[in-house]
């Protein structure tokens, strides 16, 4: 049986892209649909997967590494996520998952561009040992972002990531933890714009509803949207 058969289109696309050996992928779309989870776990991640969450205040320490005080009073070099992913398990490269790369500051962004370059062009000199590091064969990068319009991304970045997939619904496996009666609602509300209800809210709602009933759970979790939510379910289950 085709493992893709019952998957939503966006997840089929992602599986096909990864299976075809594309090693630079952007996953974008509404939050809470499992983009980062997919980057860390789906496809060939046997050599390890490392995550970088980009913020304006982060430094290259998180990307390439830096010196930290050791137990003996000296300074020891600690590798950053990108270098760890380059090395992978020592034989093949690992997976680097970069969340919200568009939020990184200028110098970190430049370093990330260098780190996510093609295997032939990417090089980095370790300041502690002077060794030249290059990514191992099999190194891959998955970038995730909530930006809806890919045109807003810098062209150098777009150039490195030729494949962008919009993830508009949660992976079916992620829905299995929800009560059966709200799984489909969680799927449909993942991409409802201003009225979006995240998977995490549905987890909490499902948990609360078990103990306190639908109405109380909806009021506690969805606040002013509770009436609209409950009315919609009433109509839907007619």
């Amino acid at each position, binding site marked *: 049986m085709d493992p893709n058969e019952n998957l939503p289109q966006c997840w089929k696309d992602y599986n096909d892209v990864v299976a075809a050996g594309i090693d630079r992928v952007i996953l974008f779309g509404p939050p809470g649909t499992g983009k980062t989870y997919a980057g860390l776990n789906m496809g060939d991640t046997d050599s390890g997967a490392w995550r970088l969450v980009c913020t304006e205040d982060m430094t290259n320490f998180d990307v390439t590494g830096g010196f930290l005080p050791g137990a003996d009073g000296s300074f020891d070099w600690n590798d950053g996520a990108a270098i760890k992913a380059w090395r992978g398990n020592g034989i093949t490269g690992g997976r680097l998952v970069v969340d919200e790369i568009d939020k990184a500051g200028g110098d970190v962004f430049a370093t990330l561009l260098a780190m996510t370059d093609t295997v032939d062009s990417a090089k980095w000199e370790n300041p502690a040992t002077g060794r030249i590091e290059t990514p191992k064969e099999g190194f891959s990068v998955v970038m995730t972002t909530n930006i809806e319009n890919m045109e807003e991304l810098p062209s150098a970045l777009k150039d490195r990531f030729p494949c962008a997939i919009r993830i508009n619904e949660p992976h079916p496996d992620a829905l299995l933890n929800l009560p059966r009666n709200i799984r489909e609602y969680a799927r*449909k509300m993942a991409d409802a714009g201003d*009225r979006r209800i995240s998977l995490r809210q549905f987890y909490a709602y499902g948990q609360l509803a078990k103990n306190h009933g639908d109405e109380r759970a909806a009021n506690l979790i969805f606040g002013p949207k509770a009436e*609209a939510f409950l*009315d*919609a379910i009433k*109509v839907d289950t*007619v």
Partner: protein
Amino acid sequence: MTTIMEMKRKDLRPMPELIRRKDGANDEPAEWTVQPCAAERGAPMTGILPRVMLVPVQDFELDRVIRAHEMMHAKVSPGNRGPWIDRGICSDRAMICAEEARVNFLVAKAGFDLEHLEDGTEQNAGERISERGDWEEAVFYTAAISGCGGLNKYLVGIRRHRPAWAPRLRRIHQLIQKEFRRIDRAASKGNDTPLSSTRTRSGRLDPNKELVEGYFHTESIGEWLDRLAEEPHPDEKEEEEDEKKNPDDESESEAAGDDKDRGVGADKEGDMEPPLSKADLESQKPIRKESAGSWAQLNVKEQNLTRHVPGGLGKKRIASNMGRNPRRIGRMFTDPQKRIFDRKIKGNGGVVLIDYSGSMALDEQDVLKIMEAAPGCTVACYTTNDYDKDGRANLWVLGARGRMTTKIPRSRGGNGVDHPALVWAIQQKQSGNAPIVWVTDGGVLGPGQGYSDQLSMQCIKTCIKSKVLIRDRVSSAVELLNDIAARKPIKRWWPLYFRMSYKRQTGLSLTDIR
């Protein structure tokens, strides 16, 4: 306590994104455009395929019920009504109003209080409709607000000018609700399709083209509304008059009772009576969903029309005072205008449509006989199979413009396109008076389907409207064509299938329609 200002300030947009359907619409998670609008009749709307909804968003009970109503449209209404309109089973207005009734019934079933569903315009609407004496709109509007809080006010408005209409309209509302309750009960036992079903008949997921199962109920109610809204035929009027003479008749006493409350604007005694008698209303039945059918697509092919057919149906010579050959010399003394010559007048032409299905058991010679009896007419035959693919011809033009073919296609056994062929034949009329003759036994069927009252009623209505003459045998068809040519008076005749269907659905006799 929530103040009115707080209720007004609230923005309670519904969540149509959450609605699940079985026809493929709204399946992909995506945001709807939900815009606020006034809580007035006509303002809210729902577009399922473009994912647009206009609804009032404030925190009032009326707003909430309107939101539920629009959400129910998003849940059960077809994404595109085009394929339903194309079926031609009922009028567009009837279909819209029947759908409002179905949606309101389902909203009430979901637990919303429909008593709140009134915007204060119902009484005015009732007055306006009754003042104009627009029975058709009175019936449709009743269906549109059936089950809502505004119904009583609407009937108050109706009573202002047509007091006798109100009980009849109320009964129509009751019958609509009764029919929905029946369907709902049957569906809960698995004996009928649920009212809210959005499964497609074909099983294909295409909300733009496919027919959703639940809407067949709407179509049936719509077709029934069309019958109720129809102005009576002259003979039916006579029946009603007879009915009035009978003092035991309940409808009479009811109408008389209402006359006491007659309002302003009642001009004549006759205007006060509803065009539909109580007996007729009770005998008219909505078609059950299992009696619903559909036609195949009509594909027309013109055969090679190689043989010239002299003459024309209805063509004749009349006396004239100009000419070369004095054929009517006797008129020299008898006719003051001395019309001793002849002049040919063109016939009206005509259209002959032949049901060439297996049940008719016609052979090529039979078809040729009919064609020869119909000179100058457009002659066509139709037949199809349930396994025919789109595009394969199922109606052949055998004669037109004074020429005919000698090559008659072989019958393919089935009917499949009776009504589309009939509509095509009506469109071929050369003039308004041109007769249309349909040679059929009345066993009209959709492709691969059994006989259905819905499809036969559609054919009957079209025949009545366009004065189509039906004959079931070659000999009687030839005789009819000869009578038309001789300009003899023609008697209308209906096949047994049609008579039975009409009786079942309307309680009336089709033979009374002349």
